[in-house]
């Protein structure tokens, strides 16, 4: 015999009774539909079967569903507490490591990205003015990312001012600068050291490599006309400005290792004050 509490508990649990009516209804419905591709008699038979199923189903669920008591089953093995301790990844910040503890503010990334984007654009437009005598050349090339018909344009057309080109070009530059700047801001605190080297040289080089590998797919217009040296230089100018701006911003702590009460700003005995060191 199992202990009486178990038996009593189990008696109170009720489960819906097994019933064939959903199956009968589904079968009738399928036959009804199959009548369309076989014979109308099949559809009629299906209709009747479905009707029988629905009536039975309704009878079982309204107004009072037929329930049946649950059958007692073997009990699960009780879960025993473990005596051994739990090894924490980082002992001083709870067993969930949330790093980093201090980050550059997002605004630094956004502003840095914008600044970098402006400087990069100046470099690129300067190159286009000096080498090609056109203010709009690089802008149009960049716009080729989204405007696929630019790939077919002649160099003369690309030299000329084009409204669509300037709108799309500026948009791309803006969105890319802000997002990359933001990424810079998030990623840089994760790097162990040599922040400016990463920001100014390594990341622009990796980005240029990625672009080099994929440019013919993403932007056929640019891939035909691109000057890689200047491309890299403009990327590096972005990296230097954005990286410099982010590094000089003051880091803010993330509250990641704070107690819940602290994060809510609740002042109570035993809980350290906002932002206080541990």
């Amino acid at each position, binding site marked *: 015999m199992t202990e009486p509490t178990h038996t009593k508990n*189990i008696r109170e649990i009720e*489960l819906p009774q*097994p019933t064939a009516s959903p199956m009968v209804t589904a079968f009738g419905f399928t036959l009804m539909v199959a009548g369309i591709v076989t014979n109308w008699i099949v559809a009629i038979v299906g209709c009747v079967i479905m009707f029988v199923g629905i009536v039975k189903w309704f009878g079982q669920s309204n107004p009072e569903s037929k329930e049946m008591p649950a*059958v*007692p*089953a073997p009990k699960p093995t009780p*879960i025993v507490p473990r005596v051994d301790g739990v090894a924490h990844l980082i002992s001083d910040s709870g*067993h969930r490591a949330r790093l980093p503890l201090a980050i550059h503010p997002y605004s630094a990334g956004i502003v840095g990205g914008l600044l970098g984007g402006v400087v990069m654009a100046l470099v690129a437009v300067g190159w286009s003015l000096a080498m090609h005598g056109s203010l709009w050349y690089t802008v149009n090339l960049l716009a080729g990312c989204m405007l696929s018909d630019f*790939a077919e344009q002649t160099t003369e057309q690309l030299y000329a001012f084009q409204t669509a080109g300037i709108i799309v070009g500026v948009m791309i530059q803006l969105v890319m600068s802000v997002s990359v700047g933001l990424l810079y801001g998030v990623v840089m605190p994760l790097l162990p050291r040599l922040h400016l080297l990463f920001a100014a040289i390594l990341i622009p080089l990796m980005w240029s490599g990625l672009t080099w590998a994929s440019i013919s*797919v993403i932007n056929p217009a640019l891939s035909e006309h691109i000057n890689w040296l200047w491309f890299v230089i403009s990327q590096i100018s972005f990296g230097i400005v954005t990286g410099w701006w982010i590094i000089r911003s003051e880091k803010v702590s993330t509250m990641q290792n704070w107690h819940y009460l602290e994060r809510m700003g609740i002042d109570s005995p035993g809980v350290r004050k906002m932002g206080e060191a541990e």
Partner: protein
Amino acid sequence: MRLAGDSEVSTLETPIGPATGRPPFLSQLHEWVTTVDHKKLGSMYVVCGIIYMIIAGLEASMMRWQLAWPGQTVLTPEEFNRLFTMHGTTMVFFVGMPILLGSANIMIPLMIGARDLAFPRLNAFGFWLFLFGSILLYFSYFGGQGLYGMGSAPDVGWFAYAPLTERTYSRGHSTDYWILGIFVAGIGSTATGINFIATILGMRCRGMTLMKMPLFVWIMLVDAILIVIALPPLAAAQIMLLFDRLLGAHFFDAQAGGSALLWQNLFWFFGHPEVYILILPAFAYVTEIIPVFSRKVIFGYPLMVAATVAIGFISLGVWVHHMFSVGLSPLINAIFMASTMLVGVPTGIKMFNWTATMIGGKIRFDTPMLFSIGFLCQFLMGGLTGIFLATVPFDWQVSDSYFVVGHFHYVLFGGLIFGILAATFYWYPKVTGRMMSETLGKWQFWLLIIGFNMTFGAMHVSGLLGMPRRIYTYQTERGWDLWNLLTSIGVIFQIAAFTLFAINLLHSAFKGRRAGDDPWDAWTLEWSTTSPPPAHNFDEDPVVYSRRPLWDLKHPEDPDWKYE
């Protein structure tokens, strides 16, 4: 099902006393046919899904035999068209859907501490609609050509583009079978989707707030919402097509003022979310498995929830990327290219969170974890080629080539099927009470890794070399011979792997090691009850305090609720 040897409580007096010994076959059958138990219905879904997976796999194998060398005559062009249509349709609607619905059926109530789904009879209704719908589709092999004599299956491809589906081009009834079979099953899926939403929102146990739900349940909630949004447009489009075919309407008949493009829009408005409906469950499986086998809590729970919701939302606004090559305006193409790239962000977040969960963890390389890692690598590749394909100029080059076929098999096979295999090895002990063989599982894993990458990796190359999809043969001077042969040889490895899987499933059901309640030392509620669980799931209603209720019980000195 309760096992005969386990009935130590059979002396207890109950109104419908439990059986001692195995009941006769007919009453067992009756029990399964009339059941409204979510675990039994779920198991039937999964078993049917696996049977259809074998059928659809054999259909694919026949196609690969035909394509292994140039100029083969194993299949006629007509047979080939039917095979790729049935392979695609079966895999999407009768393998992916039932296995996801089945696994959610079994696991959602167990994970949220409920006794069943909100509407158990509706749940049974959904299952039977799926089964009868699938039988109706396969019946077309006998009845498909209607007045024209011998049977034939549909041959219009799984997305059934208009106007080829119009009566002028598709004679007989084969296309009608395609419409009706999926239509019937689709009603069942929608009903079950509503059932899941109601269950998750209304039947969680005490203490389980939305932000304490297992991520499996979160992902299935988003999945159910997608099902409810995406399937009705398909049903509507199918009814319109039926009107065209049977009642002389002209919705998709361009010559009579209809629009063939309308079908593409309606179908892909369903079809793209459908891809996410299929892949999200794989996310759900590995999100449960990876933390347990890394012995670490999932990294970034709130972000995972947000990413899931974002994926669900964005996936409703990207469908035109299937139509880049039909010649829409550059502006529309650009918008949908951008929205498609956007899906990469939440999906990338998930990839990072899974890897971050593994980093620093104490990883156990059991079979569920192996398949989860396989999922991570292969789904990543499928995702990356997806980004390629989202780029309009690239898509123009390779649209409708084997590159696309390779891409979506990396997503749906390398992603979904690997996820399903991981889930099978992980939850099989809970459902049957016995462990699957680790040795067979590891053999299966490596055979499948080899076969899978050989088959679908080579497809990318033949696609880049210009091989279009859906051709039944090719000439030898095109340079595709080697890649097609490799693709077909890979299939042999895959057949070997799935044979081992079938043996493992059947053998372990009778001879597998007894699992006990909690074989993986896991943390969610389903492991706190017996394996297999009783019909009522839990004797007492569980109460939870954190996202890992079993961890709290096992480690009272260091419970999770202190940190959440």
